[in-house]
């Protein structure tokens, strides 16, 4: 019995390590080929570390591709989206879980529709609306649709967290003479801090990757986001893999770095969302 379970343990470990390598290898390969020239990538040194570390690939990616600018744009859009989603979702969740009115369950279900609606299905009508509002070619052209599409998940998560806040707190604040706004701002919102991180992560995942909206709604190259920039750059260097690799690394590593430093926090928040949602 004991032997058996030891064998099983080793098998499990082997499986876990194997899957870990499957996940790490592409990142490793991407990093190494971003520092090689074509002959190395294509022939004599496919997997190994670069022989000559060709940092000039990065200069080219930064120079022609303007990756730094794209990264900043993506960061601005993501941050604003997270803030707006959070504010709107907290308010809505407060109305849906605390305030008393008849159809609130129905409305909650209505918002949950948003979980299943594909973002691309609304592309042209949203374009027309944004155009009428003179918002195309601004960060808002992305922030508003992204916030709307993140809303359902954010409400779902916030509902879970808010239901856990004891109603007695509301009661006592009410007795102390707080208004609805007072209770919301002074009692509920401070206690929702853990939800902030969770909503932030889910919203980030939703808007960091998006390609089609970002491509169509933004015409100024100074406002392009990372996915559009990476796609455009790889169109320009189809045959010169080094600079593409450099662009991919530049688009990826800052996020990964942040993630590795904050991984425990990020995972815990993500996990909290799963359980409460």
């Amino acid at each position: 019995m004991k032997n058996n379970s030891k064998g099983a343990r080793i098998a499990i470990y082997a499986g876990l390590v194997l899957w870990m390598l499957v996940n790490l290898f592409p990142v490793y390969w991407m990093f190494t080929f971003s520092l090689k020239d074509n002959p190395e990538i294509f022939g004599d040194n496919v997997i190994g570390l670069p022989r000559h570390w060709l940092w000039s690939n990065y200069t080219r990616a930064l120079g022609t591709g303007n990756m730094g600018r794209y990264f900043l744009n993506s960061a601005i859009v993501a941050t604003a989206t997270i803030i707006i989603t959070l504010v709107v979702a907290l308010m809505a969740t407060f109305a849906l879980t605390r305030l008393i009115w008849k159809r609130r369950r129905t409305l909650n279900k209505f918002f949950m529709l948003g979980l299943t609606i594909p973002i691309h299905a609304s592309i042209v009508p949203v374009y027309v609306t944004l155009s009428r509002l003179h918002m195309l070619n601004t960060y808002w052209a992305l922030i508003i649709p992204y916030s709307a599409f993140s809303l359902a998940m954010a409400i779902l998560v916030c509902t879970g967290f808010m239901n856990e806040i004891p109603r007695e707190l509301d009661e006592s604040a009410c007795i102390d003479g707080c208004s609805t706004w007072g209770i919301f701002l002074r009692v509920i919102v401070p206690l929702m801090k853990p939800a902030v991180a969770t909503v932030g992560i889910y919203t980030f995942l939703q808007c960091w990757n998006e390609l089609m909206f970002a491509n169509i709604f933004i015409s100024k190259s100074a406002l392009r986001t990372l996915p559009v920039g990476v796609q455009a750059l790889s169109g320009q260097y189809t045959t010169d893999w080094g600079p593409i690799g450099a662009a991919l690394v530049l688009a990826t590593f800052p996020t990964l770095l942040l993630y590795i430093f904050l991984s425990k926090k990020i995972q815990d928040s993500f996990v909290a969302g799963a359980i409460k949602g």
Partner: protein
Amino acid sequence: MKKLYSNKFHILIFLLPALILFCGVLIAPIGASAYFSLFDWKGIGPKTFIGLANYKELFTSNSIGFMKALRNSLLLAALSVGLQLPLALALALALGKKIKGERAFLSVYFMPVLISTVVIGQLWLKIYNPDYGILNVFLRAVGLENWTRIWLGTKQTALGAVLVPTLWQYVGYHMLLLYAGVKSVPPELREAAMLDGASDGQVNRYIVLPYIKPIIRISVIFAVTGSLKSFDLIYVLTNGGPMHATEVPSTLMISMLFLRNRYGMGSTIAVLLIFLCFGFALLINVMFKESEE
């Protein structure tokens, strides 16, 4: 308190931003799409009302290939539930037992979720490159010369080649969701079962799985609707080609809207896609409820 919380004006104020955002960006466009799906329209110029003819053409025309696109995305959904989720579940169960290096494993498994889909697409384009891609280079190196393929260029392999990275990227996402569930199982339940002499497998089967059923349900819904919605990675890898072998409804919709100037037909696909996603989400909910009874 009750009176305070029943103030209609306040309720409206609290809901208004969410309602405006939600209706303006999600609901109204669906309405617009539903309306335009009844027309033969190029997007610009005059439009002709044709009733449900777009829907009929979509399901009957071979040259549009909607049924094939639908089959592809259903296959993706099936594989997602049949392969991706079990793998994620196995990883979550293995990691849920206080294994050494748990955090490191978790961190690495979640990494692909954080990498931009476009980056993953570009990376896999390089992996599959017929001449210099790592996959064919590897096959040649180990002497499996005749196993090498033009992975994204041949009808037989393209779909598989597109599905692999699509499934791979989100294993970590589901793993972390399920891991959360596994961790939330009260230790007492586990210990009691162990004392009764249950093996690891039995504990997993009779204690953990039933306990995390709600999370499995969420995972299944996300996996299925996510598969039906899938777009970015396929757009980068093949854009539906070769010869429509990897077409999914979203890529078909974009090509109708912007390449073939068939705005009415594009809207039709959008409407159907929404109904499909919604229908499947409902269906999964019902199935899980039934299995509980």
